């Protein structure tokens, strides 16, 4: 099936990224947009575009009836959901497929399986992929919780089965705390996720976040397209990502092998990411993200592959043959957000009065902003991704310093000052980071 017309159910830089990939494949893009995005760059650039709502995300980018109405009336062949919004919603994927339209992503069944974190642990564990010590079945009462916690050793985490992105997690340091927190965690899980199923997992002190890019076609071929280090996070939001992750070669091979094994076990198709925690030479599978990631360009820059085009090729039934994926270069992505690092990262919005994006050799900027653009308050704060490449990590860091010396974004607050500070830390420049590093650093420099 040749895809000729694709509806893009997203906004901002990823909408632009998908428009560009589609045009390079001679596929017609159809953009749906919120009324508040009527002057945005993707809306300006898309020739075919449909306003699907006004007044907020719920009425626009999550408005399934209007999106499906646009898709069927304009007779698109496929829908690309980008990331966020409807991208990991199995019900939406099911509706799309029921209308004879291809959903560019994994099957609704694979998506459904990945939503339940306990299920993910169970599958991984059953095929010998390391997971954090803990339970794969819900803990029924405090006595069992105490027993399990003693077995795996404190600190532990209490986790809601259907949580994710850092939500529904409580760290417990000793039995006394467990007695106090177990009932609270249980009722929180019930209130937030509708189920009071609670699991126990070992809590790691200062692990790294390492992930593996996966691509699977409809013929059972699954590939690992390198690793990424995403340990610099704030409130579980990645701030800086890079490829490849700095691991020993044997570790890289093992983690990629485990990622492939897991993706094959759930018959994963299209692009996805298997996320691991890593500490002292050991990795533990955490979850799998069933979509293109914000940080996909670092993998593109180090491998030469076009991951968004690959998504479309897989969706139209092409066989993917990847051999000899070499990552001889290094790439770092800096997320530029509209937020004030000097005021507790409060979101910022308004008109960009002065803009200079620093381009040149080894700099790729994926962004939907322009001078005169008004950043609306309704959506997330990502303004731009500065993806900086080098023959070595050191070269990429040198270029990054130059880029942050040169960039000017005026009229709104951004996290650029934070990136400048991070570029001066030994932790970042020598890659001695872990998932708690950024929060500790912000406290240390008294920014939060």
């Amino acid at each position, binding site marked *: 099936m040749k895809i000729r017309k694709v509806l893009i159910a997203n906004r901002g830089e990823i909408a632009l990224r998908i428009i560009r990939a589609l045009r390079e494949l001679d596929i017609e893009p159809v953009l749906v947009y919120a009324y508040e995005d009527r002057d945005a760059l993707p809306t*300006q650039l898309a*020739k*075919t*575009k*449909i*306003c*699907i709502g006004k007044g907020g995300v719920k009425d626009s980018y999550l408005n399934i*009836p209007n999106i499906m*109405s646009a898709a069927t009336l*304009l007779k698109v062949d496929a829908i690309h959901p980008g990331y966020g919004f409807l991208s990991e919603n199995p019900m939406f994927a099911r509706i799309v497929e029921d209308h004879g339209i291809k959903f560019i992503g994994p099957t609704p069944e694979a998506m459904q399986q990945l939503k339940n974190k306990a299920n993910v642990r169970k599958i991984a564990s059953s095929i010998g992929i390391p997971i954090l010590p803990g339970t794969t079945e819900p803990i029924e009462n405090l006595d069992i919780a105490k027993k399990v916690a003693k077995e795996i050793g404190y600190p532990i985490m209490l986790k809601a089965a259907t949580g994710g992105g850092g939500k529904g997690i409580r760290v417990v340091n000793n039995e006394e705390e467990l007695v106090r927190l177990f009932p609270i965690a249980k009722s929180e899980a019930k209130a937030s996720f509708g189920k009071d199923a609670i699991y126990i997992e070992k809590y790691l002190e200062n692990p790294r976040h390492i992930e593996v890019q996966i691509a699977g076609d409809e013929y059972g071929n699954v590939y690992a397209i390198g690793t990424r280090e995403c340990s610099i996070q704030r409130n579980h939001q990645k701030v800086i990502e890079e490829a490849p992750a700095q691991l020993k070669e044997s570790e890289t091979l093992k983690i990629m092998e485990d990622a492939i094994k897991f993706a094959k076990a759930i018959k994963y198709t299209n692009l996805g990411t298997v996320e691991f925690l890593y500490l002292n030479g050991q990795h533990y599978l955490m979850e799998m993200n069933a979509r293109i990631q914000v940080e996909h360009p670092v993998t593109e820059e180090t491998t030469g592959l076009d991951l968004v085009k690959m998504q479309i090729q897989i969706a139209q039934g092409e066989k993917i043959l990847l051999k000899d994926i070499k990552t001889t270069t290094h790439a770092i992505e800096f997320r530029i957000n509209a937020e004030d690092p000097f005021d507790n990262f409060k979101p910022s919005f308004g008109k960009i009065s002065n803009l200079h994006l620093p381009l040149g050799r080894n700099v790729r900027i994926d962004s939907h902003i322009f001078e005169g653009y008004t950043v609306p308050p309704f959506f997330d704060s990502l303004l731009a991704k500065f993806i900086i490449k080098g023959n070595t990590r050191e070269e990429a860091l040198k270029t990054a310093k130059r880029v942050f010396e040169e960039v000017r974004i005026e009229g709104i607050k951004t996290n650029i000052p934070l990136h400048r500070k991070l570029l001066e830390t030994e932790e970042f420049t020598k890659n001695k980071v872990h998932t708690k590093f950024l929060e500790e650093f912000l406290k240390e420099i008294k920014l939060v």
Partner: protein
Amino acid sequence: MKNKEITPKEIKEIIQIAKENKIKEFNLELEGLKIYFKFEEDSLNSMNPPSNTEKTNKKEEEPTTSSNPNTFIVKSPLVGVFYRKPNPNAKPYVEVGDVVEKGQTLCIIETMKIMNEIQAEKKGKVLRIFPEDSSMVEVETPLFELEEIYED
């Protein structure tokens, strides 16, 4: 302009002069000062070749707000197909010139097999009907222009 401040009234006068002279954009540099005027344009027109715009079958002169203070525009809240009649053999809900009561159905918009009735928010007389029958509309597409009728 004799005071030490530029008053809103004087600004309005400048606007008026610019408008009367059909100035779209005005830029002046004099003794280290720059003055730059530009009237808002539809960003669509400025960035896209207009010829290639497929989109819906909007007409060029479609208003988004009414210029007459006594008239108002009814816009689509949905993406779907605009129907003037409940079924192909029926009479249209309204015609130009009709007076409609508040809450009266003006048209139907079909979204994913669901027929959504669009009703008049206020009593008024139908001045214009914008979309063709059975054509596709999107959110904020103008559907009708009505002249409001005030009850005494």
